[in-house]
C-alpha cells in the first residue's frame, strides 16, 4: 500500500507546479486548459483528464473577450483586416492571386460574386501598391485597395 502511495506521489510530482495554462496576455480572462499550451505537464494532465476543449472567449452576441474588442458579427473589409493574423493571410492570397482569405475579404467588401475573379486578379497585379511596406495598417491597406479599385473601369463603381 505504501508503495502504491509512493507511486502516486512520484507520478504527481512530475506534473510540476506549472499546470495553470499560459495566458492570453492582456486578456481579461485568464485562460484555458490545454489548448495552446505545449508544456509537458499539460500533456500529462491532458492524458489523464481527457484534454479537450478550452478557449478564452466569452459570450454569444459578440466576439468580445478582452483580447479582441472588435466585437463584430459581420465585416466590412477593414475590420476583417484588423483581426490578428488576417492581414498576413490576405497578403499571401493577393501575392498568389487567390485564396480563402482574399475571397472572404471580397465578400466582406460586398464585391458581387461575378466580379470576384476580376477583383482578385486586380489585387494580384497591384500587390506592391496595396502592400507598400511591412508596417502598413489595416486602414492604409483598405485605402490602397480603394485607390486601386477606383482606377479600374470595372471595379470603380463598386468601391
Amino acid at each position, binding site marked *: 500500500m505504501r508503495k502504491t502511495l509512493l507511486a502516486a506521489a512520484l507520478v504527481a510530482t512530475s506534473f510540476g507546479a506549472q499546470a*495553470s495554462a499560459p495566458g492570453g496576455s492582456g486578456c481579461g480572462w485568464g485562460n484555458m486548459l490545454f489548448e495552446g499550451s505545449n508544456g*509537458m505537464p499539460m500533456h500529462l*494532465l491532458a492524458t489523464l483528464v481527457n484534454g479537450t476543449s478550452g478557449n478564452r472567449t466569452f459570450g454569444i452576441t459578440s*466576439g468580445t473577450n478582452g483580447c*479582441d474588442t472588435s466585437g463584430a458579427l459581420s465585416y466590412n473589409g477593414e475590420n476583417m483586416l484588423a483581426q490578428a493574423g488576417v492581414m498576413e493571410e490576405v497578403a499571401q492570397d493577393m*501575392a498568389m492571386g487567390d485564396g480563402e482569405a482574399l475571397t472572404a475579404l471580397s465578400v466582406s467588401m460586398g464585391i458581387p460574386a461575378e466580379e470576384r475573379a476580376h477583383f482578385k486578379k486586380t489585387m494580384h497585379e497591384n500587390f*506592391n501598391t496595396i502592400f507598400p511596406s*511591412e508596417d502598413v495598417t489595416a486602414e492604409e491597406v483598405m485605402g490602397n485597395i480603394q485607390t486601386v479599385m477606383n482606377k479600374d473601369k470595372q471595379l470603380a463603381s463598386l468601391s
Partner: protein
Amino acid sequence: MKSINLALILVLASAPLWARATNEELAEHPRWKALLHINEGTTWRYQGRSYIDDPEFFLHESGATDARAELEASIEQLRPAESEARCDFPARYRFLSQQLDWPDDGALSHCSDYQEWREAMPEERVALIFPASYLNSPSSMFGHTLLRIDRGNDEDGVWLSRAINFGATVQGQENSILYIYRGLFGGYPGYFSNVPYMNKIRDYAHLENRDMWEYQLNLTQGEREWLLAHLWELEDIEFDYLFLDENCSFRLLELIHLARPDSTLMDDFRFAEVPANTVRSLDRAGFIESVDYRPSKANELDALVDRLSASEQDLALALARDASVAEEEAFQALAPRSRNLVARAAYAHLRLQNREGERSQEVAQRGLALLRVVNRTPTVPDIDPQRPVSPEKGHGTKMLAAGGGMLGDRGFGELQARFSYHDWLDNPEGYLNGAAIEAFNARIRRTEGDDLTLEQLDVVNIKSLAPRNRFRKPVSWFVNGGLDRRFIGSKRHLTRHVQGGPGLAWEMGPVIPYAYAMARAENNSAHDVLVSTAAGARAGVLWYAESFQLGLEAEGLYYHNDDRRYRPSATLNVPVGRNHALRARIERDGGPDRAETEFHLSWRYYFD
C-alpha cells in the same frame, strides 16, 4: 347510423383537447427537456435534473430540478404579448407557442436585440469542426470540437462563418492537483462563445499546426432555427465544465440533440466524451453529410517541399534567410514554375518558424519581400497536401487484448485492458504516425505454476516522434509513469516508476528511425534505497507498411548502484479490419545476472 354520427361529432369536437398536451405531458417532452439541459442518464452527474445551476437560466426558483414548475412559470411569463421574458427565451417561446397554439400576437418582433443578432448571425449550414492532433503534441489527439455556422454560399468560403465554442474558464494560477480535482469533479465554469471562424482557423491551423476536419451536418432549416434561438438563451449562462464527460464535445452534442430531439445521440451512457467518438456518434446517428479537410500550415509546407528537388529545397532555405537570393543566378535560372514553388516554400517556412512570439520588424520585412517574389512568379495551382484518413475512421479508443507466450521456459496467459487511446504500432489510419498516448493500460498475467500477477500498469504513457528535415528541427520526447515488472538481479520485481526523455527522429518514407536519451526513477523491493535512479538511452525504428506496423527497439539503463538493465525487442502489429489486430512481440529483458527471452502473441480488440 345516428349513433355513429354522434360519435363522430364528439370525436371532432374534442380533437383540439386531445391534440393539446397537458402541462404534465409537455414537461416530459424531449424538446422541453433538451431546452432545459436535463440529464436523462447520459452522464453520471445530475441525473434527472438540469446540468445548469445558474439561476439566470430559470424562471422558477426550483426550475433546475423541476421541469414542470419551470414549464408552468415559462407559460405564465412567456404567454403575454410583448413579454420581456420572450426576448430572453426565444426557443422556449417557440416551443410553447407551437405546442399550445398561442395566437400570433407579434411573437418576438418586439425583441430588437435578439432580432438584430439573428439578422447578423449566419444560419444556412451547421458544421462540426474537429481540430485534430498536431505534431509532437500527442495529447492533442483527444482533440477539441466546435460548431461552425455558415452563410451557405459555397463560393464565399467559410472564413466569415461563426464558431460556436464551449470552453472552461480558469482564472489565474492554479495548483495542479486542485486543477485536476476541479477539472474532474466540477468547479470550473464553462460558457458558450461565438467568435469569428477565421480566428479558429488561425488558432488551430496556423498557430498550433493542427489539421482541421469539418463535418457538414444535415440539419434542416427548422432544426437550425432551434439551435440558434437556443444559443441566444445560453448567453452568459454558466455551466460546470468537467474534463471527462461534460466537456466541449458533450455540450455540442446537447445542442445538436436539441435541434433533433428524436435522434439517438443521447441514448447511450457517455462515460468520457472523446471528440473522435462525438464525431462517430453523429455519424452513426446520420447527421454527417460531407467531410472537408483543412490542412495545417505545416502540412501545406510539406506539400510544397515534396515538389522540390534537394537543390531547390536548399535554395528555398537560403531564400527564407535572405530574400535577395531571388536576384541570384541560381534562383533566376529556375523555370518560372519552380521559382514560384521555391518562393512559396521559403515564405511558408518563414511564417512557420515565426508563428509565435513577438512581431519582429526584420522578419516582417523579409516576409513581405518573399511575397513580392511570389507575386512576380506565375502561381502553380493545386499544391494540396494529401488528405489523410479522417479521425472518426480510426480504431476504437478503448482496447482489450488476450494472449499468451513463453518467458524463458515457462508459458503464460495474459489479459490486457487499455482505457485510452493509441500506441504507435496500432493501426495508424485516422491517427498520427509516430505518436502514442496511453492512459490506464494494464496487463495481468498468469504464469505456469504461479499466481496471477500484475505485469504492467501505465498510468500515462506518451511517446512523440516529430521527424526532422531540412525545414524543421523539432525535438521528440516521451514520458511514462506507472508500474512494470522487470528483472532485478535474478528475479522479476514489480517497479513503480517515472521515466522520460528527449529524442530525435527522422522520416524516410514509411520508416521512422529514432533515438531518445532517458532518465528513470523507480521504487522496487530489491534495491535498498527508496528511490533508485537510472540514466540510459532508447533507440529504434518504426516501419509503417501497407498492411502491418513493425517496431524494433533497444533500451539500456544504468542505475546509481551500478545495476544495469537492457531490453531489446521486436514488435509486429497486423491490423485485421478497423477494430482488430494481431500482435506478436519478442523481447529480451534482464541485466548482468540474468536475462530471459519472452515470446508473446496477442489478439487486440478496439472498441468505443
